[in-house]
């Protein structure tokens, strides 16, 4: 499964991205009011969606790790947080660029932008924590706790535009977006999804490899099972 995905996914992801962005940039009509600037939507919106999805995976991994410790879950948590941070950063940067011609400003501390900034800072902290804690088991437990707490921001970001007054508009739906624009948005979203899976898969391999090297070190905790990479409490 992993090998097949690694082989088949790059062309699928690239193909979807080229298709989605080509339609978005060259085929779809400009917006009546925003003109061509609206085309930023086909990159900004999928980036944020996928960031929220990747960080939701991180939350699930954090919960699962604490319930049933495993280096695989910990590695997947690390991978999904980093990939989520990548997509989140792209989404926020593109939002700022889109804001300049539309709103007139790159940035303002409205609820949506503020909660998005908190998200980036939280997961930067998460990644920093992972880097600075040397004991793999402590790192896994502590980062799982941080992953659960930081995930509180995910629904807050989503609902921020509904709960509070903001400059950012509320979510669009196919009713408020013309079909010619929904199509490239959908294709781009699937392209970003494919890239997310691809990135997480490769990042997971790196993380798992690092974990196995760490726990195989001679000064690691004594092993009691037949597997060399066993530590107490970690299956």
């Amino acid at each position: 499964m992993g090998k097949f995905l690694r082989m088949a996914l790059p062309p699928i992801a690239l193909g979807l991205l080229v298709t989605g962005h080509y339609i978005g940039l060259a085929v779809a009509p400009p917006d009546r009011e925003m003109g061509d600037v609206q085309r930023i939507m086909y990159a900004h919106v999928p980036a944020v969606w996928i960031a929220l999805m990747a960080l939701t995976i991180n939350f699930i991994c954090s919960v699962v790790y604490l319930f049933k410790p495993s280096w695989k879950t910990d590695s997947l948590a690390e991978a999904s947080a980093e990939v989520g941070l990548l997509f989140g950063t792209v989404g926020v940067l593109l939002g700022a660029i889109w804001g300049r011609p539309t709103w007139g400003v790159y940035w303002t501390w409205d609820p949506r932008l503020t909660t998005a900034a908190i998200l980036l800072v939280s997961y930067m902290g998460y990644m920093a924590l992972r880097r600075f804690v040397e004991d793999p088991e402590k790192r896994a437990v502590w980062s799982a706790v941080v992953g659960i707490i930081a995930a509180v921001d995910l629904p807050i970001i989503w609902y921020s535009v509904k709960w509070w007054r903001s400059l950012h508009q509320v979510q669009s739906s196919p009713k408020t977006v013309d079909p010619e624009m929904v199509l490239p948005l959908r294709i781009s979203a699937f392209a970003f999804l494919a890239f997310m899976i691809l990135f997480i898969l490769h990042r997971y391999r790196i993380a798992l490899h690092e974990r196995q090297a760490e726990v195989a070190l001679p000064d690691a905790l004594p092993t009691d099972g037949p597997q060399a990479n066993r530590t107490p409490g970690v299956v």
Partner: protein
Amino acid sequence: MSALMTLTVLAQAAAGEVGSGRIQGGWGYVWVSYGITWGAFALYSLSLWLRRPKNSPAGPKE
């Protein structure tokens, strides 16, 4: 009639009139946005490749 109105709007826009409610141009913002996106994907792919597990050629079993 609508052509005449368009002309009026055009004249206003050319005279620097505000309140048209429409963004003209702005492709620069679009290209910078897509450049950041594609660049981020490319750079992250490169970083994954550079960090790839090295000492076991077959890679860890999944």
